């Protein structure tokens, strides 16, 4: 009797799922799956009407903590292109999802696997990848997308992938890309001008997201609240950080929204610094749904915070 009930339960479950999940007709667009929201934004900008873009992250997650949801699997199973940041940024979720997707087109090294870090000169390549250094990325710090000039290389890689997939649409992709570059270049000049008064200003952040951003805009990345990448701070580390921040007059503490507020807030209070919450990808905080809006928010918030201390 119990066995029959179980079989009935299984059949009902299967029928229900089939009814919910029947695949709609293919719309003829290029199916693009991006790991993070900034890449999704770029893919939409370059692809325009010719692409259907899905982002695995929503923007609020830690880039290393995007969940491995089975609901991503059918989406990735049908994808034509898989766009990722690369440099091992997605090691916590992407390899298992790629295997579960059973899509040979988007596996590592295949034509549909679009690693946007191609051409990026890495910063902070670790001398050791032993676990004593924390959860380091062996190919260098992967958070290059926060430098808008490096982000242009990612856009170029996305453009090249779209053209390779659909060469007949090259002209349209080129138009879209050039239009976006024009807009982005104008914004880069604007941001550089806005950030110029902050040249040499020191700041700390929770995780080491900001070396490319700091290098681009001439601000000094003083350190991180984390003891090591992926390792929470010890009391001693916090004490040492506070002391060195006071000695060096570090005015800004950056808290990324996926980390708790308590420790960065305490450090800011003890050092007299200003704590600001900055997103690391579009959608991380409200009204930052696109890359440009996100960078506008980051630059404006940082400038305002520094100016308020003067």
């Amino acid at each position, binding site marked *: 009797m*119990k*066995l029959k009930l*179980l079989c009935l*339960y*299984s059949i009902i*479950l*299967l029928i229900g*799922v*089939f009814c*919910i*999940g*029947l*695949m*709609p007709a293919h719309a003829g667009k290029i199916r693009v799956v991006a790991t993070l929201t900034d890449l999704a934004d770029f893919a939409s900008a370059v692809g325009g009407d010719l692409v259907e873009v899905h982002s695995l992250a*929503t923007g*609020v*997650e*830690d880039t*290393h*903590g995007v*969940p*491995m*949801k*089975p*609901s991503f*699997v*059918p989406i990735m*199973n049908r994808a034509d292109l898989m766009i990722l940041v690369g440099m091992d940024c997605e*090691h*916590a*979720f992407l*390899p*298992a999802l790629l*295997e*579960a*997707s*059973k899509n*040979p087109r988007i*596996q590592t090294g295949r034509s549909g696997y679009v690693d946007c870090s191609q051409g990026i*000169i*890495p*910063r902070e*390549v670790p*001398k050791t*990848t032993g*676990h004593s250094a*924390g*959860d380091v990325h*062996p*190919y*260098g710090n992967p958070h290059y997308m926060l430098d808008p000039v490096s982000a242009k290389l990612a856009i170029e890689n996305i453009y090249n992938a779209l053209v390779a997939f659909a060469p007949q649409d090259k002209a349209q992709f080129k138009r879209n890309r050039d239009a976006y570059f024009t807009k982005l270049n104008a914004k880069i000049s604007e941001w550089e001008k806005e950030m110029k008064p902050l040249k040499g200003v020191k700041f700390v952040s929770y995780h080491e997201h900001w070396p490319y951003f700091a290098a681009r805009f001439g601000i000094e990345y003083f350190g991180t609240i984390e003891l090591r990448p*992926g*390792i*929470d701070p010890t009391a001693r580390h916090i004490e040492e950080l506070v002391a060195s921040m006071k000695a060096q007059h570090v005015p800004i503490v950056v808290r990324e*929204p*996926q*980390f*708790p507020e308590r420790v960065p807030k305490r450090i800011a209070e003890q050092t007299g610094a200003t704590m600001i919450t900055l997103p690391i990808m579009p959608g991380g905080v409200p009204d930052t749904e696109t890359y440009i809006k996100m960078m506008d928010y980051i630059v404006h918030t940082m400038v305002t915070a520094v100016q308020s201390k003067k």
Partner: protein
Amino acid sequence: MKIMITIITLLFMLSLPAGAFAETLEDRVKTLEETLKKQEQTIEELRVLQETLKRQDQTIFEQRKLIEELKAEVKQVEPSVSAESSAANKSIETGQIQQQVQELKEQVGQVVEAQRKVLPSEFNPSIGLVGETIFSYRSKGSAQTGSDRPGGFDAFQRSVELNAAASVDPFAKAYVVANATADAHTGESTFNIEEAAIQTESLPWNLTVKAGRFFGEFGRLAYIHDHELPFVNRPLVLAQYIGGESRTDGVQVNWLLPIEHYVSLTVGAGNQFGGDAPPNNVGDFRQLGGWNYWGRLSTYFDLTPDISFEPGVSGLWNPKTLDRGGPLAQPDGSTLAERERRLVGADFALSWKPLRNNQFQSLTWGTEVLHSNNRYDVNSADSTMFNRSVGSLGLYSYLTYKFHRQWSAGFLYGFVEDAQDNKAKTYEYSPYITWALSHWDQLRLQYTYTNHNTASGLSPDHAVYVQWAWIIGSHSHGWQQR
């Protein structure tokens, strides 16, 4: 006559110079030819010289251009330079250029370093090692608890697990997990192959085939390695009905249904099922019925962006176990010989993992219910022989709350009816707390109270466990860890 002589003389006189002229002409032709040759040579030399001059002109042009560019760059850096400070400014400009060159060199060096890390290990598989030690105190001895570990104070190196994985070719990957577990009585460790399997990567129709030795996909936790469980010990029902981890030698096919919704179907067949389960008594010829056949159907629902529900059903059937485990003595004096093994289960996981800070906070509720319905030949105490099926039920349910990146706590409840005698029941209650110092280093403290009913003949037991698990080398986030 005279005229004739005059003419002849004249002719003679004329021919002499003609002869002389002829000689000179030949020479002159020769000379001219030689001169022509020389002139051609000279022309060739002049042509080569001309080309050399052209190249030199080009080099001079490029160098002039470079000088102009550098001059412009220098002017840009220091737009207003007074005559008195020009020398000092030039050295500053040089210094800045040198600094930029140095920075470029460092960046290129880092890229080269990154390449060096990859190239020497290009042909090595990913290799990692897991160590797991269990310190425990149990209030009763093994004879009273039925455990294979002694009562009292114990230190048990449960896992020394070496794992390696790599691509075989563009079509498949392979992995191996070898584990050395300390023997309960001798303390000696024997390296056993827990898993060694090849898995396809590019089959059509969303299929994956795995073959070799592996943990068959059954239920929620049966195919999870001991050190990856959310608590110290495997729930009672899995330990008894599966036989520890769902290890098998065989083949398994997984199909991802080609629909928008995630549905996964797995079927498999193989020798034995359960690492600690007794083997079938095969004899010298195994029929197809001597194999185990299993299957699992699972799906997934995002109830909200932060809350998910993942249900599944599983089944296992071994048509001819052929006296698996030998004669099974019962408390009532009878002896059982297992003839058929049947197991079905239903499971689910309900999780709350807020997207914004899932590394710091989450709540997971997991439950699995199993029904065992094995068939036995019974040799009763009075030597009567008959055949009977024993239907037994077991379940576990756990709740784990993560309240910090490093800390989580939970509770596990387990219940099992003995597969051979469903009147014998055992219950377990286990609160636990886990401190994950990092991805690779974890301590867990757990208390377990195990109680049995009278029919089991076993005694209640209080146990405290401290588990320390660590990983060195390669570490990947597998699909089971979602």
